[in-house]
């Protein structure tokens, strides 16, 4: 359910929704959602001063808290991409 939420938000933001990939990794203290997007969409999901990813995390955290969980979202670089 949370994974669908992360995917939905990410797809709503980027230019290339078909390249959005979300992996769920169970961490020790929280679920981590690893988000991969097209290289040209990196800036879009991060946003100026990280405001977009910050807002995405806030929403996902709120949704997770409702289910008594902790969750966060990390953006992963595409293989071969250097920032």
């Amino acid at each position, binding site marked *: 359910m949370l994974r*669908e*939420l992360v995917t939905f*938000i990410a797809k709503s933001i980027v230019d290339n929704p078909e390249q959005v990939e979300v992996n769920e990794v169970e961490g020790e203290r929280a679920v981590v959602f690893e988000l991969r997007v097209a290289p040209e969409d990196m800036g879009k999901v991060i*946003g100026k001063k990280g*405001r*977009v990813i910050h*807002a995405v995390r806030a929403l996902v955290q*709120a949704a997770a*808290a409702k289910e008594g969980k902790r969750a966060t979202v990390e953006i992963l670089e595409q293989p071969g991409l250097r920032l």
Partner: protein
Amino acid sequence: MTTIETTGRSVEEALENALRELGVSEDDVIVEVIEEPSRGFLGIIGSKDARIRVTLKKDKAEIAYEFLTGLLHRMNLRGIVESRAQGDTHLLTVNGDDLGVLIGRHGQTLKHLEFLTNVVASRGIGDIKRVFVDVAGYRKRKEKMLEDLARNAARKVQKTGKSAALRPMDARDRRIVHLALQKNTRVTTHSEGDEPFRRVIISPRRNEGGHSRQR
């Protein structure tokens, strides 16, 4: 969603045809090239037209509405989204039960939600400058609280004749305070300090013009 397919000797020509048919400009559409044109052999045999698919972009309010309803659904929340135009802005109100999760402490989550909704809506077309989001009347209530706070502080300023500084607020909340006291002829307001600690200062208005009281 309106989608049409057109052809032309070049992609540009196909696009021109599509735009003419839809009566819109290039900024309003998404273009997918289905088939590149080919000259064929000696430009005669086997030449093929370009074929493109042109989709009209949605307008900002529609995108914002779909984003919010989609979000509710995926957060397992039941709510109804109402969408209303307000001049060059648009207000989306979410009503339902147990929506506190969307508001968060001091409205923090709501702020993020509104920000994201604006990011998503900005992909659409239309003249809307901004999208406002309210959840379960939270903004309305907060606005009322800020107006009361502003008026009480103004009364105190009038009584004591001394300026008063309100607690630090973000630009939006400060604006509500300024507007609430705009018509008050006894005090003036301005903001001081740097974000995020910028605050409204309420000062007694100097006696001048029609409002002066002669001794």
